[in-house]
């Protein structure tokens, strides 16, 4: 299991995407089965990869930004497989798999440092991360259904016949899916934000002026406004507006995640900062023998060296059990 890399499942998803795109030229149940099989194999590989990381984590399992992106991609592929199993003729993979692949690619630039240590606040951290994860997945699914809606509506308005092998769901179904995506993403983002506030009150680690706090508030405000707009203004409940709202939500999400990856926040380090931190935090053999290494305080790295780890850290890559304490 340790041999599984992100490339394994990214390649599986890539092949599944190519097979989905091949719908236009290759109409056969074999193609459907192959696309489903590759995506399912990728999902199994990704599950094993995440399971292995969770089992071997020295701190809270799956608590790094890197793993958050991978979990979001995992959830999206699971949604694709469900849709594909229920309606194999619908080209849902063409719209969902690119987002999943983008999330796997984004994970490469995300920090691999766990954002939390094992503590009493774990439950709030789990709620916080899960809610944002589900919110992001809902926005991504909404984006896929929103784009499908716009394409289907364009075809119908321009009186074009359906492309053989490239079926899209009906406008009514897509409209319903878009509406649900908006509501679920607003609810999840709200819950994620609220749990983040509670967490910060409990641990007092992230300044309220931090960029992530304001980005989160901004993103949630947009989702809330979109949900209220569609609930209170009847024409906004109708297809095209709903589709635009879901696509715009995804654009906001992309901006939000890109800003997070840039790492100018104390919420989480960027991959570079994380690597730098890992480099600096790597204890020397002398330090291992002599006692706790010195952690750079400027990075707010609050882990403590534990002597019990010394024997297995003595080989070339000593990895401290310490982690980022600043949760938000």
């Amino acid at each position, binding site marked *: 299991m340790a041999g599984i890399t992100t490339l394994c499942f990214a390649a599986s998803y890539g092949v599944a995407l190519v097979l989905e795109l091949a719908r236009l030229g290759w*109409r*056969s*149940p074999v193609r459907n089965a192959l696309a489903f099989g590759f995506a399912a194999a990728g999902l199994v590989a990704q599950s094993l990869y995440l399971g292995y990381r969770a089992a071997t984590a020295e701190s809270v399992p799956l608590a790094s930004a890197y793993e958050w992106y991978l979990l979001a991609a995992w959830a999206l592929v699971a949604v694709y497989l469900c849709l594909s199993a229920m309606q194999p003729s619908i080209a849902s993979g063409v719209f969902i798999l690119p987002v999943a692949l983008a999330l796997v690619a984004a994970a490469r630039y995300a920090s691999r440092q766990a954002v939390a240590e094992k503590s009493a606040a774990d439950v709030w951290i789990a709620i916080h991360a899960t809610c944002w994860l589900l919110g992001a997945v809902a926005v991504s699914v909404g984006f896929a259904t929103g784009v499908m809606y716009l394409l*289907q509506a364009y*075809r*119908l*308005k321009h*009186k074009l*016949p*359906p492309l*053989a*092998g490239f079926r*899209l*769901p*009906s*406008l*009514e*179904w897509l409209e*319903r899916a878009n509406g649900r995506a908006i509501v679920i993403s607003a609810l999840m983002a709200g819950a994620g934000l609220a749990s983040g506030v509670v967490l910060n009150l409990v641990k007092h680690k992230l300044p309220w002026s931090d960029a992530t706090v304001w980005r989160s508030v901004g993103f949630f405000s947009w989702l809330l406004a979109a949900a209220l707009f569609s609930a209170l203004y*009847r*024409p906004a*409940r*109708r*297809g*095209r*507006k709903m589709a635009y709202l879901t696509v715009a939500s995804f654009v906001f999400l992309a901006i939000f995640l890109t800003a997070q990856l840039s790492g100018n926040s104390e919420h989480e380090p960027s991959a570079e900062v994380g690597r730098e931190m890992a480099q600096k935090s790597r204890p020397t053999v002398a330090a291992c023998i002599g006692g706790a290494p010195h952690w750079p305080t400027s990075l707010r790295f609050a882990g403590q060296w534990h002597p019990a780890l010394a024997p297995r850290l003595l080989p070339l890559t000593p990895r401290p059990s310490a982690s980022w304490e600043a949760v938000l």
Partner: protein
Amino acid sequence: MKLQMVGCSHHSASLAMRERLAFSPIQAGEALDRWRLRYPAAEAVLLSTCNRVEIYTAWDTGTNGPDHQQVAEFLAEYHGIDLGAIFDDLFEQSGEAAVRHLFTVAASLDSMVLGEPQILAQVKEAYQLAQQHESVGPLTHEMFQAALRVAKRVSAETSIHRRRVSVASVAVADFARDIFDRFDDKQVLVIGAGEMGEEALRYLRDEGARQLTTINRSPEKAEAMAEQFAGRAAPWDQLDELLVAADLVVSTTGATEPIVTLERFQRIEPRRYQRPLLILDLAVPRDFEPAIGDCLGVYLYSIDDLEAVCQRNRRKRDDELPAAIAIIEDETQRFMDDLHHRATGPIVERLRASWQNVRDQELDRLFNKLPDLSQPERDEIRRSFERYVNKMLHPPLEQLRDDSRHGHPHGLLEALKRLFHLRD
């Protein structure tokens, strides 16, 4: 084994003639019972649709089956028609051509509307009816099972069946189904009482549409149509209200000017809150002003729009035809190879048995004359005789297999029967 098809179709006979020769399911059952009494050794399946009446027959080579003339007489006699009146409209296919014809019919490549889906169900029903009346035998069973399999293969490997070519079916399958997920909760408004509208309504009913309102300047016509489709009729002056409530409009009036102008629609538009509205304007001249199609949430299709899609679908179907024909050819060849192979089986068996019989007799004679032979010596001699028989039989059997593959083993079969005195 003989296979034969005698019948008429839209290619060879007029509608009037097809109507005279057509069988209802009850009549078809009756006819098959009569067939069994008259030709007990011949299998038969009777396929009767609005486009064709065909009798598929089969019998073993050793038995007597009806020829073309006798089948024609049977048809004429059943319907009480003079044979001379129908004989020129009937055509015959036999052997491989009959198999190919059935496969082509089942795959809907011989239909009036290429790729129409009903024919497969009709072929299946014809076969089931023949089964019920015990007129099916091993040959027709194999042939019809293969036909159903071929039709499914053509459907899966080409898109011929997915291309609709009638205005009403395109309107419902290619457009309405892509706008609405379900139809049972949709308000369908029918304006006018044209034939095209009726056809569209039939498709919508099949899709589950239940809430139907008809409206016409002549209330009697509206009521008649409402009764036919289990809907309700509404007075003409409620048109605007009904347009506000409608999800799907089918319009087929004979009005010379548009009955719903852009201005009129814009007056009711705010009350619809941009709810999707599918308008199938099947009237000529049009009942809805084309500019209405630009309004938000409105999907307006005129008869020309739908006809253009039909034309495109027809062209695409034609493009797929060679692939479908290749499948038919491939399957026909496979079926005939299997059939011939099975036909040679009994002869091969008898030939082997006859030679083995001679071998055993000679061995017994030899062992009686040489009683001092040990068991290993006897076994060796037995194996030697076995190899000898196999080597002698190999060339004629190989030649027979080759002829079977090429579809003409009958001459060789006859020769083998006569040379080696093989009796049936």
